[in-house]
């Protein structure tokens, strides 16, 4: 390279750079839609929502800076904030482990079957592609205390069923039952993970005299731990933002027993027009999800096995 005469290398470099410049301009044109979209729909809204969270803004009047008032009100002057947080945390803490374990057991079962896997996979996955609006109305009826399928069935064998969505104790379990109907979403990912475990590992384990449980404990579980962790994390983030079912079925009731966090945010922003307060709620949600993600990543380092990772 450096051996060429100065003039020739100079000329070549200039021609190269002109091509490079051309290419770079084309590149910027290609990504221009995203850059514009990022500025208009992400960067500006993030800044605006951050500023809003320190203001009182009801759309009707211009925004007014009120410092930390929104946040201090949440912490010390708003029982509904704590209620919505409690409801959402309980729902998440119950649903995510149940969905993970249930989906995993289902995938293990399906992975044992010799024939009919395709059929069962379809049946298990069908609820996942059912629109949330349809499943919400469907379960609102199936679990209706007076005329629902479940309580009618229980009545036919002389058992009085619970009040489900109409009861403060049963409303969260009812939402969990509804969400567990979509167990197949996790299952399909676990099944792919199970099928990706190399058989040599099982053969090696067998040569070492491992039984079924030992093989599961020392081969299957570690090899599928990345996908388990992935569904756990994304599941947690997703359940924290649940909305449709609560909006359609209970509107947060009875007595705020199903006041999910996003439903409360929605009510503040679009029913009470407290845009500043709602922006503050959104930032608190972001902080919670961020912290949960960090904790999960930290904990996962100890339990999740990544093939090829240098320890």
């Amino acid at each position, binding site marked *: 390279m450096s051996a060429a005469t100065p003039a020739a290398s100079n000329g070549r470099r200039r021609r190269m750079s002109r091509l490079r410049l051309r*290419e*770079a301009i*084309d*590149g910027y*044109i*290609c990504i221009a*839609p*995203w850059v514009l979209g*990022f500025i208009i*729909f992400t960067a*500006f809204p993030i800044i605006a*929502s951050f500023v809003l969270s320190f203001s009182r803004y009801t*759309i009707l009047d211009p925004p007014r800076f009120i410092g930390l008032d929104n946040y201090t009100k949440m912490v010390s002057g708003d029982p509904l904030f704590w209620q919505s947080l409690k409801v959402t945390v309980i729902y998440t803490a119950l649903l995510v482990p149940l969905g993970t374990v249930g989906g995993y057991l289902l995938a293990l*079962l399906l*992975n*044992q*079957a*010799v024939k*009919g*896997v395709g059929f069962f*996979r379809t*049946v*298990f*996955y*069908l609820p*996942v*592609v059912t*629109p949330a*609006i*349809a499943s919400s*109305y*469907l*379960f609102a*009826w*199936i679990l209706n205390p007076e*005329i629902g*399928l479940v309580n*009618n*069935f229980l*009545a*036919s064998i002389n058992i009085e069923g619970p009040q489900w969505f109409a009861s403060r104790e049963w409303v969260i379990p009812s939402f969990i039952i509804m969400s567990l*109907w979509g167990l197949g979403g996790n299952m*399909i*990912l676990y099944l*792919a993970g199970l099928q990706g475990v*190399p058989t040599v590992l*099982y*053969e090696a384990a067998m040569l070492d005299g491992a039984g*079924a449980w030992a093989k599961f404990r020392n081969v*299957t579980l570690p090899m599928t731990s990345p996908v388990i962790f*992935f*569904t756990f994390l994304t599941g947690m*983030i997703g359940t924290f*933002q649940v909305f449709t079912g609560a*909006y359609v079925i209970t509107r947060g009731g009875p007595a705020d027993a199903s006041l999910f966090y996003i439903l409360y945010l929605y009510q503040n922003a679009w029913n009470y027009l407290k*845009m500043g307060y709602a*922006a503050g709620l*959104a*930032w608190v949600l*972001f902080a919670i999800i961020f912290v949960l993600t960090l904790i999960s990543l930290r904990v996962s380092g100890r339990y999740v096995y990544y093939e090829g990772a240098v320890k």
Partner: protein
Amino acid sequence: MTIKARVDSENGQTGGWNSGWLRSASGKQVAGQALIYLLLLAVGFMLAVPFIWLVSSSLKTETDAFAIPPSFIPNPIQWSNYVMGLTEFPFVRSTINTMIIVVWVLVGTVLSASLVAFGFARVRFPGRTALFILVLSTMMIPSHVTLIPQYLLFRELKWLDSFKPLIVPSFFGGGAFYIFLLRQFFLTIPLDYDDAARIDGCGTFSVFWRIILPLSKPALGTMAIFTFMSQWNSFFEPLIYLNRFETQPLAVALTTWVQTAHGEGSMHYVPWVAIMAVSTLIALPPVMVFFLAQRHFIQGVVVSGMKG
């Protein structure tokens, strides 16, 4: 196919269905299999019951639907639920609304996400890596953080009660997730194609349009299916942007219909069988897409880690 199978067996991969850890060459095998199928059938039955109930009750009379003990076979079959769902509920208008949104978002997402992904995958420019990291990091931000200012922006633009707030953003990159997916796919296409096309006189954009896009039909198809599914099910955004009944897509229009016709929160006087008929119709297109493109769809779900 045979070559692939051999490579797989050399790697000790099976990818087949019978690589289970429980299976061993013992006499208990048959009993074990029977137990597995029994459990699968039990779970399958439980998961299928709500679905069967949805369809069967959409064909029942209301007294039949409330019967104790419940029956799954409608007797007599009552089609009038569907007539009610198609006439009293503005089904056609709402479906058209949904379709307009779905089609435009599809066009916007596929076009802009593929162009942006092409830029990140195959065109060299200063700052490319840093910008791509920025793309990825936007996936971390929950949509609710940006939602309120976006709403206020669209309000200022007088776009409320129109489809623009739902459609226009999709033309600006179509979302970080799709950019990421497509970029990964574009990276698997050999660069020789680009070079050959450039020697033949193609510019950057004809390489994109004539070479990369046609070679990416599978990835674009998967993306189109996902976009369709998520737009068809979309609820929160249409709910806040479209307050007028006439403009609402199916999912939101159904809740508006139920609530205005029968009063908020009243669970007793709602014509459940008609709601079930409309719900069945709403569920039908995604279920059909799932059946028609099942292999493609499940593969996409697994690769991208998305659930439906």
